[in-house]
């Protein structure tokens, strides 16, 4: 009976320093796959390595191979097993399958629902195929993983909502402005969250980034970082006429932008829309500005509320996704079970018996003149023909061992005899 095993570390069990040490580049992966394939107990193997995880998924004849694979990783990465033993998880059978399906569906990601993971899983599978390390079981399992991931993305809203403050701000900007590449951003002050928001906006190709800071030198440094333009803090009022998105994060105790200033600026800018993102505490932007036409002000609490409701929504969707994954695991388990020798032989026997019975009934229906014992003889004969016909194939299936890949032959047999039409791809 083939045994599916997954061993690895991920962002939940290992800190980034450790994950870095255990990461495999594409070339290293290819080399490792070729080496591990030679191991007598490893029939199929796939290595999955991203910045958040390093995992080895393989099919083995027994469980001793876990220590060998771990030792191999230690040798490759020049690391002692004690350094990562506590972070290592070893999953068997259904647990391993479930884990792979969850990873592909982005349920195990640091940012649940992020879409890149599926591409990375596909890449890992391609590499395994290239190295000739993937076989019947992993092929089927990975294809199931891809289809379940697509289904999760399609049928649940798991990747729909922004779940960080800066993403929520960008999402809002995208619902206010139709084309961010024609819009200018003004950053007032500095701060991690504000800078992150500017970076996200820059990835949407905003036209221009202006930076104002009470300390002009800081403004220049930040402007260089964002390939933007530095300006004096006192120029902010006149800048309101030209920019479209203002991200504010200063340490000021009073409003740095007042409603009157915006009212004046609005006239100059023909009431084109202004969007204020106020990340400062205490607030920088007068909340009264939100009551002006075509001006929108979101402060940190507003953004937090949106993020919280998005997270809640996402958790709701996660439950749905987990259910889809659980169903897929059960289905895969059924297929795997059918790949055993005894059920396959039984299925062939059942199929032949059914064919023989049906054909006998059809023929004997027209031969009513025959006496009863002749009819019984004909039945016996047809059964004997059938069992003689499948005798050699069954003998071949029973003759296991010899280091051959049983899963491969069983899979071919089931396809030749068309034994599981219901769950074919």
């Amino acid at each position, binding site marked *: 009976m083939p045994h599916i095993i997954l061993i690895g570390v991920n962002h939940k069990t290992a800190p980034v320093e450790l994950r870095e040490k255990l990461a495999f580049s594409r070339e290293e992966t290819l080399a490792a796959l070729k080496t591990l394939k030679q191991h007598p107990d490893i029939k199929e193997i796939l290595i999955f390595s991203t910045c958040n995880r390093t995992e080895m998924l393989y099919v083995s004849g027994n469980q001793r191979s876990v220590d060998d694979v771990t030792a191999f990783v230690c040798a490759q990465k020049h690391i002692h097993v004690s350094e990562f033993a506590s972070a290592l998880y070893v999953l068997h059978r259904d647990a391993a399958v479930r884990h792979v399906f969850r990873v592909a569906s982005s349920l195990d990601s640091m940012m649940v629902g992020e879409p890149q993971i599926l591409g990375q899983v596909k890449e890992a599978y391609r590499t395994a195929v290239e190295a000739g390390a993937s076989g019947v079981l992993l092929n089927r399992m990975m294809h199931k993983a891809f289809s379940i991931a697509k289904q999760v993305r399609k049928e649940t809203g798991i990747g*729909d909502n922004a779940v960080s403050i800066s993403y929520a701000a960008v999402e*809002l900007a*995208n*619902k*206010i*402005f*139709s*084309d961010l590449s024609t819009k200018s951003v003004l950053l007032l002050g500095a701060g991690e969250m504000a800078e992150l928001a500017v970076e996200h906006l820059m990835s949407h190709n905003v036209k221009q980034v202006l930076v104002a800071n009470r300390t002009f030198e800081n403004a220049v440094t930040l402007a260089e970082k964002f390939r933007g333009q530095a300006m004096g803090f006192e120029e902010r009022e006149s800048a309101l006429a030209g920019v479209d998105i203002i991200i504010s994060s200063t340490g000021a105790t009073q409003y740095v932008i007042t409603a009157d200033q915006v009212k004046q600026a*609005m*006239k100059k*800018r*023909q*009431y*084109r*829309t202004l969007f204020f993102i106020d990340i400062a505490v205490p607030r920088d932007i007068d909340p009264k500005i*939100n009551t002006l*036409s*075509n001006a*929108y002000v*979101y402060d940190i609490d*507003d953004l937090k*509320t*949106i993020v919280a409701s998005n997270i809640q929504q996402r958790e709701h969707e996660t439950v749905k996704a987990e259910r889809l994954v659980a169903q897929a695991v059960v289905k895969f388990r059924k297929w795997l079970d059918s790949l055993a020798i005894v059920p396959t032989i039984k299925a062939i026997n059942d199929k032949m018996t059914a064919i023989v019975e049906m054909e006998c009934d059809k023929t004997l229906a027209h031969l009513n003149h025959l006496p009863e014992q002749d009819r019984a003889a004909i039945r016996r004969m047809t059964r004997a023909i059938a069992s003689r016909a499948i005798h050699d194939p069954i003998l071949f299936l029973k003759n296991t061992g010899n280091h051959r890949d049983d899963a491969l032959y069983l899979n071919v047999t089931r396809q030749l005899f068309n034994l599981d039409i219901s769950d074919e791809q």
Partner: protein
Amino acid sequence: MMNGLQTAGTMLQFVFLLYLVSLAGYLFYLVYQKEPVHRASIYLITAGVLVHFAAIVVMGISMGGLPVHNLVQSLSMAALAFGGMFLFVQYKFQLKMLGLFAAVILSGTMLGVMVLPDTQVVPGDILKGFWFYCHILLVFTGDAALGLACGAGILYLLQEKGIKAKTPGFFFKRLPSLDFLDLVSHACIVTGFFLLTFGLITGFVYAKAIWGRFWSWDFKEVFSLGAWLVYAVLIHLRLYSGWRGRKSAIMTIIGFAIIIFTFLGVNLFLGGHHQEFTK
């Protein structure tokens, strides 16, 4: 001759059905956001508009002129103009949720066509001629464009309400950005205003030819001019005082309300020489 009208009547019933199914499709799409349903709904409206056009051609041939002799015929013509204009705007801007508005208006108008009594018409020579056809074509398509501007305006207000109140909810994901909605609304206003302007001018020319005067203080004339002024002011304010977004959206709704009143209300409550062909 009756045969042609009967055929057209059956075709219009089929058109009504197509618009209704499309409306159901759009409602489903509104809730579940399934793209194939959206596409199917557009195809249904397109099929509806094509059959509708054919029906009106059949009617026109059997009547020997544009079928705008009574209220039912005028409503049907208005629906066709609206459907055609919607397909144009949809093709140009791909504003998905505008289809829901269009399906509501089309189904509603066709419901009127189905249930209102189709009064007997006496074909006269008065409703013919180049200027009359231009007048009808321009006014109906212009009104349709202004109706779509109102639709985009309503969508703008829905989206704006959520963003302003800081509670992005049901519509936040389903509607595009405020800028885009405003752009579509404005494009429809300018198109509609342009068509309406020439529609009114051709109307004056036609009136001069028939009644010997450009302007006769007919109620429909007065309200049409009122609606035209609303849009003229709106375009002016947008250019010179930055009336965009919310204010503009509200104005499109007011303007379209005046247009609907001009179309229906004047005939029902007031009177005038337009009465003759929209009984």
